[in-house]
């Protein structure tokens, strides 16, 4: 305990804090980039997966297999797979790129199911009305189904990204200078583990808490029926 107290002034130096801040930023950047790109690609996956017709069967099988496989593999294994695969095809890829690709691959698999669930929550009669008026599949998705599915899709998708901030720690295993990696480094320099990782735990909390608050706010906002919302807007105006 005394050792910790004695280390505090030495630990909380501007240099150390800048280092931590930088790696916290890196963690956040990797998570958000990976999850956002993954989320976008997941839409494409879900759309392809819903392609009707016999000729599209192989396509559907590939999409379903992708989701089922990657949801069952530990994230750390995905990271190593991507690392070794990328190193054989493009040896100069940065570790950051490799980390983002890994997160992306994982996020596609998880959010695809969230998106599919959301789309399925919209009554099929809405799609039928659109089809009967000659809407194509993509137009139906963009103008009718998706706008109604957001309230179901967004909260769990945000929750996924928020919880992934901490899972991103695993990319430290391949040597990305993210938050947990820095922690190990500082610890190796002789700082008390409790002090270092206590601070790092705090950093993770500070990163994810505001985001999950944002998620909850969106959830509440989206849950309000549109009619009430616009009525409120009218009243306010």
């Amino acid at each position, binding site marked *: 305990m005394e050792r910790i107290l004695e280390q505090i002034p030495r630990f909380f130096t501007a240099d150390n804090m800048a280092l931590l801040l930088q790696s916290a930023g890196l963690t956040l950047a990797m998570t958000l980039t990976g999850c956002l790109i993954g989320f976008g690609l997941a839409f494409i996956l879900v759309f392809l997966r819903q392609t009707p017709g016999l000729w599209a069967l192989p396509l559907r099988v590939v999409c379903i297999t992708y989701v089922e496989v990657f949801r069952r593999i530990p994230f750390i294994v995905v990271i190593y797979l991507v690392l070794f695969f990328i190193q054989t095809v493009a040896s100069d890829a940065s570790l950051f790129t490799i980390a983002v690709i890994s997160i992306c691959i994982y996020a596609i698999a998880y959010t695809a199911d969230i998106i599919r669930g959301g789309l399925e929550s919209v009554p099929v009669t809405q799609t*039928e009305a659109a089809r009967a008026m*000659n809407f194509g599949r993509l137009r139906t998705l963009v103008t009718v189904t998706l706008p109604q599915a957001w309230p179901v899709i967004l909260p769990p998708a945000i929750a996924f990204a928020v919880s992934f901030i901490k899972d991103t720690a695993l990319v430290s295993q391949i040597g990305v200078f993210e938050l947990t990696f820095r922690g190990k480094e500082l610890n190796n320099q002789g700082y008390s583990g409790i002090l270092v990782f206590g601070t790092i735990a705090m950093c993770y909390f500070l990163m994810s808490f505001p985001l999950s608050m944002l998620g909850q706010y969106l959830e509440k906002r989206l849950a309000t029926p549109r009619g009430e919302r616009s009525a409120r807007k009218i009243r306010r105006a």
Partner: protein
Amino acid sequence: MPHLAVNDLRAKYGALEVLKGVSFSMEKGQVVALVGPSGSGKSTVLRTLVGLTPVSGGSVTIHGDEIRYSNAASVRRARDQMAIVFQQYNLFQNMRIIDNVTVAPTKIKKRPKAEARADAERLLAMVGLADKLNAFPDQLSGGQQQRVAIARALALHPEILLLDEVTSALDPELVNEVLDTIRRLATEGMTMILVSHEMAFVREVADKVIFMDSGAVVEEGLPEQLFDAPKTDRAREFFGKILRH
């Protein structure tokens, strides 16, 4: 040549044959009423016409042009000529009333925005909803929503309007406002197929009544023929039960 000819139309849900060879035809400007007990396949007839339920046999021709339901372009053409109004309105919940009515004309039929909007405003005024343009569907009553649904279908300027029990989800006091709209369309010469349980209304507006049971047409004729002097036992039993109330 009839405007619409349906010949031996068949449809299945899985192994269950729901339409077992339905045939009828209608002329331009006619109002045809499909009546029959629950589960007889009336909705399925309308749904197969617009390609929402797959056809397993028979033929449908409009102006002598056969619709091939296995061919996407042919189905698109059929949907271009027919508009359906559902029992449960099925308005797009995420769009304002005006957008519900203009979305297909502008995005699908590629009509100029201003023209589509003017048309939509005219139609919504006709169904008595000129003051609801900017409301969302969940802010309207059932009767109002159903009238929007009719306006949305009319905005497509269909050759044939299909109406599936458009009053059965409504409270009695709201039924008349919707029937008034349909009555007006009938006098204006709109070609319509009307599925309805409102026998008094059918008698008033229909040029022809088709009585269906268990996925087939049992009897067809003028309303007074079917209602007052049905030839088949099945029709006599059905109308006897309904018209006595």
